[in-house]
């Protein structure tokens, strides 16, 4: 592997763009295919298939064996609310290899002391989100209970192709949220993308347990269930 190929691969991943490294394992030759160049590639079909699954693997084409190293953008969780639950989420997300971004304009909440080692943006979501961008590898989670902060975040998430959207709150709270989002012009299908009540139903009580149930739901959405019910 040329260092230049490795450097490009790392740079593309940091820019949240997918790449596929194609290695002819018999000849030892390699080329890096960027996301935008896949359609024009001779191996477009297998490249697209592997990228869709975000899975590296061997493919046979034109009588040759290739290994495809698929680099899908890193999954990321964007949260509104520098609250108890997101504090508990921070170390869990790190262990799960999920990048965590926490947005909260309330500077008393969004302090580095409360959130060491986390990307913390003490801003309004309508300022922070356009800058960081939400994409198909992003999960959005609204945790503040405050419509002034959560709603602009949900608005941006519903207009994006986020793979997961969740909002904390009771059914009653969510009912009011649905009314506001409907008034803002979102239809039932769009609003139906929001997981609410948020998280897998594991009977979570404490902030850490709620964080666990939310992250479990995010992983479940990202990977999909594997086992069939007995």
């Amino acid at each position: 592997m040329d260092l230049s190929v490795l450097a490009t691969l790392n740079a593309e991943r940091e820019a949240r763009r997918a790449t596929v490294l194609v290695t002819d394992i018999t000849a030892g030759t390699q080329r890096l295919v960027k996301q935008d160049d896949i359609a024009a590639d001779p191996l477009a079909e297998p490249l697209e298939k592997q990228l869709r699954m975000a899975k590296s693997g061997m493919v046979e084409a034109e009588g040759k064996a290739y290994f495809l190293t698929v680099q899908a953008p890193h999954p990321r969780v964007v949260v509104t609310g520098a609250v108890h639950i997101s504090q508990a989420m921070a170390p869990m997300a790190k262990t799960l290899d999920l990048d965590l971004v926490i947005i909260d304009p309330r500077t008393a909440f969004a302090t580095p002391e409360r959130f060491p080692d986390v990307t913390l943006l003490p801003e309004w979501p309508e300022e922070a989100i356009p800058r960081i961008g939400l994409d198909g590898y992003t999960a959005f989670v609204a945790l503040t209970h405050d419509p002034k902060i959560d709603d602009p975040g949900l608005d941006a998430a519903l207009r994006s192709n986020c793979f997961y959207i969740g909002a904390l709150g009771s059914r009653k709270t969510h009912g009011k949220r649905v009314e506001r989002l409907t008034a803002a012009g979102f239809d039932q299908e769009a609003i139906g993308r929001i997981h609410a009540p948020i998280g897998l139903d594991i009977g979570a009580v404490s902030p850490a347990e709620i964080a666990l149930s939310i992250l479990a739901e995010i992983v479940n959405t990202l990977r999909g269930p594997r086992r069939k019910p007995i």
Partner: protein
Amino acid sequence: MISTDTDILRAAEEWSRSGRQVAVATVVETWGSAPRPVGSHLVIDAEGNFVGSVSGGCVEGAVVAEAADVIADGKARMLEFGVADETAWKVGLSCGGRIKVYVEPVRAEAAL
């Protein structure tokens, strides 16, 4: 903590840029129950330092040893490990699976 494939390939780049000779090992195929998925990386330098994992510990030693040869002669190799392949390798996977690992050198260029 260097635990993710992101960190591992970044380490490969950093090591190579700092003048160390580096090989990258990648799990390219697995059969049966294998501990690490296809696409997992192990990065090794000429002194035998390594980050990442291709098997969760069972065959890393053999891969690191082979990587020294890859770094020395600059040629990529395909290694195969598993209980069913006792002729080539004495190192088995305790889980009973089989894996194929591709080990290749990182070639630094003068321009970089």
